[in-house]
């Protein structure tokens, strides 16, 4: 999963980025309201974490103009503006969810997952043969016994499960996995795919030579 974080406070942004990346979520971070839309049009994100008190362009204005431009990605608003009229204003402008500062990291992560899952639609549990993946609880089972994935492996799996049956190129997967700051190692994706195949079975991830990787569309 890859999200864009728009937050002007250095300490808050820094900690959200660290915590989310610890969960295998890639975070790109902008500190300026005017930088949000260019970032969204350059890269495909699964969600936007939007602070309302941004310099140069207020969060509400950002929200209005990106909804006006027809962007549908889930938006989770983070703000210190806690009164009911302010929340209503935020939701009306197109926010999908609302977290009032100071919030809990666990809650932020849980809401982010719920938002992204709702946006993808359908069953939170993906089944294929003996493998079942719960996208909510992020638990993976093979033959009823739980398998532990590294956060990078989970990130690759999560990206593939976002659109089962669709091929993702290595470049697309790399983009999902690394933020602007991350250094991409040349064969990293192959390493994670190899790890996934080892844990979930050789045929769980399908390789289409020259195009990329996919998981089978089931159900």
């Amino acid at each position, binding site marked *: 999963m890859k999200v864009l974080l728009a937050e002007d*406070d*250095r*300490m*808050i942004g*820094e*900690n*959200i980025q*660290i*915590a989310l990346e*610890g969960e295998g979520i890639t975070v790109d971070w902008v*500190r*300026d309201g005017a930088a949000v839309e260019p970032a969204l049009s350059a890269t495909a994100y699964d969600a936007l974490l939007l602070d309302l008190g941004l*310099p*140069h362009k207020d969060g509400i204005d950002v929200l209005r103009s990106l909804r006006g431009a027809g962007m549908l990605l889930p938006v989770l608003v983070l703000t*210190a503006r806690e009164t009911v009229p302010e929340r209503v204003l935020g939701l009306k402008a197109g926010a999908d969810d609302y977290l009032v*500062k*100071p*919030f*809990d*990291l*666990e809650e932020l992560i849980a809401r982010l997952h719920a938002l992204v899952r709702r946006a993808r639609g359908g069953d939170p549990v993906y089944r294929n043969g003996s493998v079942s993946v719960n996208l909510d609880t992020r638990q993976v089972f093979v033959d009823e016994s739980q398998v532990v994935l590294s956060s990078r492996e989970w990130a690759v799996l999560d990206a593939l499960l976002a659109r089962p049956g669709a091929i993702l190129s290595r470049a697309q997967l790399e983009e999902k996995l690394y933020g602007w700051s991350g250094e991409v190692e040349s064969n990293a994706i192959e390493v994670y795919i190899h790890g996934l195949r080892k844990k979930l079975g050789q045929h769980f991830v399908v390789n289409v030579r020259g195009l990329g990787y996919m998981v089978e569309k089931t159900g």
Partner: protein
Amino acid sequence: MKSLRLRLILLVGVAILLATAVQFVTTFRASMTRADTLFDYHMRQMALLLQDSTFDQPGWVTSMREQGSYYEFVVQVWTAEGARLYQTPSLRALPPRAPEGYSVVRLGSNDWRTYVAVHKGRVIQVAQRLEGRRDRAVQIAFESVWPLVPVALLLLVAVWWVITSAMAPLNRIGRDLAERNAGSLAPVSDKGVPREVSKLVAELNSLLARLDGAIAAHQRFVADAAHELRSPLTALKLQVQTLQRARDDTTRAQAMQRLVDGVERARRLVEQLLVLARQDPHARPADAAPVSLSQAVTQAVADVAVFAKSRNINLECRHFDDTTVHGSADDLYTLARNLIDNAVRYTPAGGDVLIDLQRLPMAVELRIQDSGPGIPPENRERVFDRFYRVPGSDAEGSGLGLAIARTIAERHGAGIALGSASLGGLMVSVVFPLPPAPAA
């Protein structure tokens, strides 16, 4: 507590009663004198009427007797030789013959007023007992003064009514104020209030408005402060949670350092809020003792020096006069400290901060320049607002430094202005006006 209304009514009431009494006495005395004159005139007329009479008509005496009472007139007629020709038969004792004209004679225990006319050898005396005459005069006098009493009473009632209704607006304002709760600072209505009182009401309303403004500013400050505390608190909470989630020693140590930074930031904000709250222009006037500005600035430079060194910023004073201004040493230190701290904070590492203190002909100028990014002219007024940060600036400022500096400068009568520094960054200039130097 004295009632103005009662006092007015009492004073005006006493004045009315005194005036009525004086009028009563003078009118009474005038009436008495007039009655006296009138009786004398009647006696003389009677004597003049009788002087041609022959006194041989029986019966005319009878008509006098019919009206007889103790104040009746008595007529006596003598010949020039003293033989009695006639006398009113009503009384046993009659006054003796008196000299010609008006006089008072005594008969027994009574005084008589007499008028004697001498004509054609006959002496005609008309007499009247003084006691009766006085009673009659008193009666006439009373008849002319009695209307004064109801008039005075009516006047008293009118005064009571006028004063009470004139005082009504004051009572209404009093009730209006008494019924208010602490938060109600709406102006008092001056409808129907007389001019003298409306001045008072206007002053009261102006005071209420100023109070309202001060309370609103205070509430705004508290709301702003609460809002501004949210960010450092959020950062602290996230930093603690990140620390809890750290899986190895390296990340734990990093998280711990970030937490320490977060606590320091929160401490700084709280400290700055306290300074600003103390610097509230309404809180107290600046102490007006002569203090050394150069000492305050030197102390501020010394206290920022460590921070500057940690950021590898070069602090330099090129021009430093020994100067004295009127004010509070603590406040001047806070002012200098905030400005120098700001300059160091917003200047990229390796930059320069220049601090000059210069005596001008009629003023002292503290000038702080830096090689940082500066502030675009369109933002130079807004940066003095509380909690305003220049968009895109990276430093963890509280947004209060310049607000505090301006408040202190204003309380010292000093002007504070922003400009472009020769070093490329921001220049802050604080100019303290000097009182004219006393002649040596």
